Every structure is written in C-alpha cells, then in structure tokens.
C-alpha cells in the first residue's frame, strides 16, 4: 500500500504515511495520498494535459515538502489537479532536486467530488526516513 491514513496524530487535520521502494516512488505515493484525501473518487485522471517541473531543496525531506506545496499551488492558482507520473529525485552534497512529469485535469465540480480541501503541508511530525530499503514519509496536511 503506497499510503495510509494515520489516526492518532491530529484531530482537526489529516495525517498520512506514504511509502516507496525508492525516493521517486515515495514522491509519487505522497502525491497520490494528497489526491486521495481530497477526492471522494481518486481515480487516475483519464487524459489530462501533461506538465513538467523541476524543484530544488536543501534536503530530501524539504524537497518532499516543496513538491507537495507545488501540487497545492497548481490546485489553487490554475484549478488543476496534478497527478505525478514520474519523479526523478537526485541527492547531492548541496541538497536534493527533482524533475517531475505529471498529468493534469481541470477541477470540475460536476465530476470531482471533494471530501476536503488541503490548505497546506505542515511541518508537524513531518519526516522522511529510509529503513531497510523502504522510504517512508509522515505528513500532516492542514485542511
């Protein structure tokens, strides 16, 4: 399972634990988790326009934070739901970077039934860990 809800972290907001066998998989899982907590029916988009973007951060943890914030930015600024298809993550001595290719779909109230809107990614209990070959992130979204 690429992500699960975590019940005991927050009452007003929503916490998830996302996993992947690589950093790239983890980022895709976290993107799927964001979509799944917002939408009643989080099926993959049929055939939206493709976008790509690049991001840099001081660490892989902050890169995930920035990545999720970028998905929220598209939701609010362009009314686009972004589903990452591939994420290439690189770590180096000066930090971490990614290249993301994603499918998009325009928010349509007739088609998309929202459970909640996510306002932000919080740093509360935010973590990215690599243990025994599995990448795990704990994320609390402000809703």
């Amino acid at each position, binding site marked *: 399972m690429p992500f699960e809800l975590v019940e005991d972290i927050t009452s007003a907001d929503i916490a998830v634990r996302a996993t992947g066998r690589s950093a790239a998989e983890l980022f895709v899982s976290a993107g799927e988790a964001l979509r799944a907590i917002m939408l009643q029916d989080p099926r993959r988009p049929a055939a939206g326009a493709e976008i790509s973007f690049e991001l840099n951060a001081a660490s892989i943890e902050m890169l995930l934070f920035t990545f999720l914030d970028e998905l929220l930015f598209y939701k609010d600024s362009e009314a686009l739901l972004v589903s990452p298809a591939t994420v290439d993550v690189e770590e180096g001595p000066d930090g971490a970077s990614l290249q993301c290719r994603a499918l998009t779909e325009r928010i349509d*109230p007739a088609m998309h039934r929202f459970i909640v809107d996510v306002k932000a990614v919080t740093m509360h209990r935010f973590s990215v860990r690599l243990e025994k070959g599995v990448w795990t992130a704990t994320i609390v979204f402000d809703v």
Partner: protein
Amino acid sequence: MKPETLKKISDYCYEIPKTARKGMRVPARIYANAELIGSMDDAVFDQAANVAMLPGIRKYALCMPDGHSGYGFPIGGVAAVDPEDGGVISPGGIGFDINCGIRLMASTLTLDEVREHIQPLVDRLFARVPAGVGAAGEIVLKGSKLDEAMVKGARWAVQNGFGLPEDLEYCEENGCMEGADPAAVSQKARERGKSQTGTLGSGNHFLEIQVAKKAGIHDEKTARAFGIDRDDQILIMIHSGSRATGHQIATDYLQRFLSVQQRYGINLPDRELACAPLYSEDGRAYFGAMNCAINIAFLNRQLIMHRVREVFAEYFGKSPRELGLRLVYDVCHNTAKLESHEIEGKARTLLVHRKGATRAFAPGMKGIPERYLSYGQPVIVGGSMETGSYLCAGTASARGSFYSTVHGSGRLMSRTQARKRFNGRDLQRSLGERGIHIRTASFSGLAEEAGGAYKDIDAVVGAAFGAGLCAPVARLEPLGNVKG
C-alpha cells in the same frame, strides 16, 4: 504529557508548571472545566508546553476552553511575546489560514417573515457565493490592484462599491490592518490566491442564516446595543479567511524560518513552531506579509457579505437598508497583533499570537467601536450547523488571557472518525426535518462538520464565562447553512 500532571488553579483554569519540561520559559495555562480538560487530547498539553518555550514569551502560554490539538500551537492557543526582549513571530502560532475569522450581520427580519423562505434563500446563497474547491470569485486580483487590496483590506472593497462606509467601523482594525507590506509577499502567494477573493472555501467555513430567540438572550441590554433588538431576529454569520493567499504566505515563511532560525539561536521541539525575532529582517518580513493576508481575509468576508446583501435584497424586493442588513462585527481568530498589555505594572507592547482564539477587548478599551464602548467588544463564537453559535462580549476579567477567548466549539472527533460515524446526505435530511436547510459542495465534508464531531458549545461558552474570558450575550440558532 498526561492531564494528571496538571495543577488545578481554579474550577476553570489548570496549569502545566514551568518545571514540567526542560526549556519552558513560563508555565502553560489551560482554561477549561474538568470535563472539557478530560475531552482534550494529550497533544494539547504537549503543544501548550512547547509554546511556553518561545523566546520572549510573557506570563503564560495559554489554551482556550475550545482547545484541541493542532500543529505548532494547539488550536485555541494564545501567546504574547515581548519583541523588545527577543520576542518571536511564528507562523505556527497563527495558522495557515491567516485571519480566518467570523462576521455577523443583523437584519430587521424576524423568524415569522423568513420561515417559509429559508430553503430558497439558502439555495440562492449557495448559487451566488462561490464555495468549495476550485470555486473562483468574481474579482481577479493581480499586480498593483492586488497590492492595493493587500494594504487596504475591507476598505478596498468599500471604495470599489462592495459595501457601506459604516461597515468598516464594525471590523477589528476597521477592516484594514496597518503594517501590510506587499513587497514581502512572494509571486507564488500572489498567483495562488488571485481568483479566490470573495469565495467561502471549504472545511469548517460556512455561511449561515440564524435566529436569536428570546430564550437565547443572556444579556438583553448588551444584545440591544449590538443590534439584536427584537424577538426571533434573523442574523447571518460568515466564517472564512484569507484563502490560498494566506496559505501560501504562511508556507513560504515557515520554510524561510526553518532555514534561518538557528542563526538566531532558536531551537524548539516542533518544527511547526519555526520562528524569528519580530525585530529582525526575517521577522519584519513575515509580519508585513501576514498583515497583507489579514487584509485579504477582511476583504474576502466583506465581498461575501456584499453578495449576501444582494441576495436578500433581490429575494425580498427591498434594499439592504430596508432589510436592516447591518454588520454587527467582524472578528479575527488566526492572527498575531501588536497590542498594549500590562506586565508587572507597566504597559508593554506585546505581539499577541492567537490561533483559533478571539480577541475580546473589555469595555472602554481602545479599538472597540464607539457604539459598543461601554459593553465590550463583540465576540462571535461559531458553532456547528446543528447546535448553534454565540454572540458574546469582552470583559475586564480577561486581562490574564491578554483579552482572548474562544473562537468556536472545538473539535472532539477527528475528521476520519466523523466520516465513519456520520453520513453527509443523512445529516442533510435529518437537519432538514428539524427545519435547518443545508446546501454543501461536499457531502463527505458535511459529515466531518456534524454537530457530534464538536464539543458542546454551551459547555465551551460556559467555561469561557466561568473563566472570565467573555460573557455570553445571545445564543444563535441555525436555520440554513451553506457549507464549502
């Protein structure tokens, strides 16, 4: 931290001693009765203790009776810091929805006049006030127009025909927070919120038609002063914030503070408490940007109220003035403001963080509209769509809380627990049978906001009164609700 470690100060106040955890600079105090304390999750006490570690904090880290766990501060958290003594500003002490707040509008209509019209009125409000994810407002704010709006707040709306000049008198800060600095707002924040001004949002944001019944009036004289002057009077409550502009400003500065706080020698146990001294380049920049978001929220609620006036005027074929659609007051509950408070007998300018807490100035204090000066600041406490809300007044006895009080009922259940327990469509139906008409952009979201997911608002307001934080004036019952 377990509640058993709390020291009882009074029936409505419990303390976490300064010695409870290394790094606490002051004790933490939770205002609540024993039952409410028992209903709070343990994280509330941990988070209150963490807040007590903020550099420059004065007297106590506080939590109001509607408190529940959040991130950084608990929801209901209040902390006053002295900027002259390294006092910090923290986005986690304000929340991502900067200046989330409530405004209450009175009318001269009575229940008998609207009872048969609630459903069509709610349907029209739902159609005319954009709500839910992806909804866009009628005004797109960009470039210099956005700069002007971020500086002027609700005043921008009134100057552009969206309201009456007298509306401004009945907002905290007259709907226009000083110290807004648009240059401190990122391009990303400008872009992200450009279409959302004048939209309700989602989650616990709402627009509600309410009635003040005679039996719910606690203080007739003050109610009359605030504009509730007839039996079964109709009021309209609006709960919304700064939308995506505020969310992005908070996110931007959370990241910035995380990267610079060590430079200021700050090391706190929760990264959501990332902060910088107010009187530093970083702190001043966030303060300027946050004030822009405060103004965007004032503007947002003003635009929504204008739309509500239009809907009522069109429906009843009378002008808003003929319908007596007058703003009672607009309160903020996610802010940090510079205010004068007495510390050890001396007046000090403190930065008061309130996260899910309402300013509640006492009678006679500067900042209250002239008309209300001898009654105290109106405090609007938003409850659930099932159980009702309150109009309260600030009291002199709230000095110990830096004149702060509750903002709502406070969550009891997590969102997922609420969704398992309640069904949105069933809830809409059962409320309809009770005469409460609901329209929503999300039935799952509606289930999360069920009355049973929240604490008992009568108990919360009762505890706030018992603690001397504010005094109830009128209980407001829901008739119709638009949920984002």
